[in-house]
């Protein structure tokens, strides 16, 4: 029990997320409790607009929480400077990079920014990390290509490689499988799974591939209108948490197969 507690990297207590301005607050979700440990792959699922991206943005420190707390290594996430945080936590967003006139190599090298000197010179260690990122994501062959020449699947691998080069214990990915065909979806998820096992990173990703996530992840976060559930896929299935994900008159979760079926 003690060893497990030691391994907890990201601890979330009674978190409320949403947007606020001077006049009003718009709470999207409340009472979120999670604890993510070293080497875990965690899937975040929920309907469109339920607040998956907002949760990821809050966990990454890009957005302030409306209530509750996020602890990264027992320290509140607000206490990290943006520079310190960049060495602990990397992100892959749904938005494409602002420019695609960078070669794959250059794009991935940018991930080393938290480590390079004021002008961005790459050290031997930086080059090693970039090489590792290229090999792990199998992008070595396309490393000289420009990003605008890549397919969606290749681009996603490059985006993951850039986050990988940042060499952080925690990686957050917002819908890394969108726009990809079934092969690339499985490829990306398997890549993430392998990474958690070989590098002991904690990887949290949001996805709509609920059936794939159930098969691959160690833990899952299920966001519904009323509550956010956290647990292993098996626990969540037995407790019937997936049944409340979507309106049941259209689709229904089949706990035998771990899939959703359309109601006819």
């Amino acid at each position: 029990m003690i060893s497990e507690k030691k391994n907890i990297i990201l601890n979330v207590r009674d978190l409320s997320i949403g947007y606020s301005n001077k006049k009003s607050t718009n709470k999207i979700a409340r009472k979120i409790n999670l604890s993510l440990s070293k080497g875990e792959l965690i899937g975040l699922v929920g309907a469109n607009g339920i607040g998956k991206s907002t949760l990821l943005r809050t966990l990454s420190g890009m957005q302030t929480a409306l209530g509750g707390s996020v602890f990264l290594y027992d320290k509140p996430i607000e206490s990290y400077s943006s520079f310190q945080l960049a060495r602990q936590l990397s992100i892959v967003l749904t938005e494409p990079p602002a420019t695609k006139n960078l070669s794959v190599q250059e794009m991935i090298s940018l991930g080393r920014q938290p480590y390079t000197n004021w002008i961005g010179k790459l050290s031997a260690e930086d080059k090693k990390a970039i090489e590792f990122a290229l090999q792990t994501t199998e992008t070595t062959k396309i490393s000289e290509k420009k990003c605008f020449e890549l397919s969606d699947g290749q681009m996603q691998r490059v985006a993951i490689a850039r986050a990988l080069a940042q060499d952080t214990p925690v990686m957050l990915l917002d819908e890394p499988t969108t726009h990809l065909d079934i092969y690339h979806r499985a490829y990306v998820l398997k890549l993430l799974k392998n990474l958690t096992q070989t590098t002991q990173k904690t990887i949290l990703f949001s996805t709509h591939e609920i059936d794939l996530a159930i098969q691959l992840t160690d833990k899952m976060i299920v966001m519904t209108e009323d509550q956010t559930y956290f647990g292993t896929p098996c626990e969540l299935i037995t407790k019937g948490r997936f049944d409340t994900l979507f309106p049941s008159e259209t689709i229904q979760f089949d706990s035998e197969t771990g899939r959703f079926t359309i109601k006819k």
Partner: protein
Amino acid sequence: MQTTTTFRLHFIVLFAVLVVAFLLNLSIGSVSIPINEIIAVFTGSGSSNDNWQYILVDYRLPKAITAMIAGGGLAISGLLMQTLFRNPLAGPFVLGLSSGASLGVAFVILGAGAFGGAIGGFLLSQWGVVIAAGLGSFLVLLAVLAVTFRVKDTMAILIIGLMFGSLTTSVVSVLSYFSNAERLQQYIFWSFGSLGNQTWQGVSILSICFLLGLLLSISSSKSLNSLLLGENYAKSMGLQIKKTTFIIILATSILAGGITAFVGPIAFVGLAVPHLVRQFFKTSNHLVLMPAVLLFGSMLMLVCDTIARLPFNAFALPINAITSLIGAPIVIWLLVRKRKLFF
């Protein structure tokens, strides 16, 4: 990252062209001076003709240096703005700096009639105009910086800059409407831009502005590279967006504001040079782009100034017209030929 060594040949060629353009620019004018004489003056052996020596050292050399600073500085501030706003249409004047300078100059030239006497005389002198233009762009800069601290969104800063520009332009229109023909002509001549008539004192002040702006730009090159991925990614890699935005805008203002104060609003160079350079140096890495843009901008400005003097040796065409006249067709030709705008 592709380093500068990958582009060594590009840089050697560019530098050689710059040197040729520099010597050519010095040799052409109302008096033609042979190139070997120019080299003789620079190597210290002195020219055989005292008049040539005087023309070179006190007229053409400051002009050529001003041209290089103006071209290089405007091109760099264009590059900074294009990356900061991640918009290929941005240039050094998107934040309304040139409009601010125009407003200052318009107040001085068009309003000088109200003062008369010694004050009026000083206001209309070259230094009066330089100070007015500098103050004008500085005030716009302060307004823009005040906005940067309040507004989160960089795109909002862009729009607000455009609004400032439009505001000051309309004030200038009102001033022009009420001023007499002679003053109006003087103002319009200023707005054509002029590289000549610079004293060494002026050139040294301009050089200080330029070096300061250049230093700030170079120190931001790592931040600029991370901005290429977009603000959110840049933040996740440890970039402090507000501080970086502030430094980049400050660098642009010092560069573009200082240059506009001395040579007037020169259009086109700042917008086009970064695009031209990206066509030849196929990268977005600022460590490569920045020196390339600097050399290319200086070179282009020298060439434009040389061409402005070619047809009528006695006097020069307005430089502001020449930069666009030469540059616009080149950019159009390049884009049509390559069919791709790299950004």
